[in-house]
């Protein structure tokens, strides 16, 4: 079946099987490999993207479900030639990553979090609860939580 998706602001079309996962379409057909597949069982959050502005797990959506929808992946967060998005910068500055595998999903969840808590206090406890759907197996969460807190502040500062 033919689908069309707006991905990072660009309209893309492709021929998929009904059983093709959205993450497979993004990685293998569109070549956007920043979105990772970790557990492939909707637990780890490495495949987190935004669909119509909401964070979702691309390993637990069919590509067909994204037909006509607006998708943002990690590649769409900042221009390819830089500079980095303030949230990406904050991960770099606060030791928010080590191996980096979970990082694209962490950043997509972080951005959704900042959007959802606009005008409210995104404190440490809230960040930790909001990261329920994202697993890190190497850096540990302290740096990630610090990075999100700093990134949220930088974004609110109009950066």
């Amino acid at each position, binding site marked *: 079946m033919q689908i069309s998706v707006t991905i990072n602001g660009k309209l893309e079309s492709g021929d998929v099987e009904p059983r093709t996962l959205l993450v497979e379409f993004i990685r293998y057909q569109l070549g956007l490999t920043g979105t990772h597949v970790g557990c492939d069982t*909707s637990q780890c959050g490495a495949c987190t993207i935004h669909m119509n502005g909401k964070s979702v797990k691309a390993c637990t959506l069919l590509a067909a479900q994204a037909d006509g929808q607006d998708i943002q992946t990690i590649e769409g967060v900042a221009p390819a030639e830089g500079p980095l998005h303030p949230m990406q910068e904050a991960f770099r500055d606060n030791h928010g990553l080590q191996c980096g595998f979970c990082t694209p999903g962490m950043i997509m969840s972080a951005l*959704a979090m900042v959007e*959802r808590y606009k005008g409210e206090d995104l404190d440490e406890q809230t960040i930790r609860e909001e990261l329920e759907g994202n697993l890190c197996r190497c850096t540990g969460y302290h740096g990630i939580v610090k990075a999100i807190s700093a990134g949220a502040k930088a974004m609110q500062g109009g950066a």
Partner: protein
Amino acid sequence: MYAFDYKKAASLEDAQQAFESADDGTFMAGGMTLIPTLKQRLASPTDVIDLDGIDDLRGITVDSDSVTIGAMTCHADVAASADVKKAISALAHLASLIGDPQVRNRGTIGGSIANNDPAADYPGALVGLGATVHTTKKTVSADDFFTGMFETALEEGELVTKVSFPIPEKAAYQKFPNPASRYAVVGAFVAKTKDGIRVAITGAGATVFRVPEMETALTGSFTADAIADIAVPADELNSDLHATAGYRAHLIGVMAKRAVADCG
């Protein structure tokens, strides 16, 4: 996943027509249970009929005595709704505890109750508040809707359209979550409604159930102490790698007391 045909329904009629013309069709709401099930090849429908395009099934309306939630309304929308928080804060709280943010952005109330996972949260709220389930064929009380493990009063091809919750005097939900999945190992929903006290337990048995002894005791005195000595027998409770039946029986008492205390 085995191969299947995908159809996005534009209306309820469209969805039902697609179901009738399929050899072995299945409806998909948010897909948070169905897609993992398909991926594990535990189901092999010939047709997956996506309900996401049926806008009539989405939305929250609150009037003076009830909160009505469309079947395709996602958990995140219920959790964030100022109207739900004001009318039945325990319901918004319960929705905020389901899964994780990404799952709450996709998972729906209709999908959750139609699936009737024994560890799901929503059945607790439906039975705890004495809700009414509206389907394409009938209107049924929550007490009669959940009939067994992954079993409901829905017939072949029947769809949940909305759920109406009467606004209680007070209500609270407390759960002991599985630390990995956030499913309820045991969840207790306690409500003081105009028709009496209701205590509903999810996660512990084959399906959600009420505890009449606790309801009677709380009618006499609405305090956590009133139910401190009421033990629910472990005989028919679930026992698995997360918790034994005995532990679940113990947690019922703990969670129910916490819920009563939380009612204020």
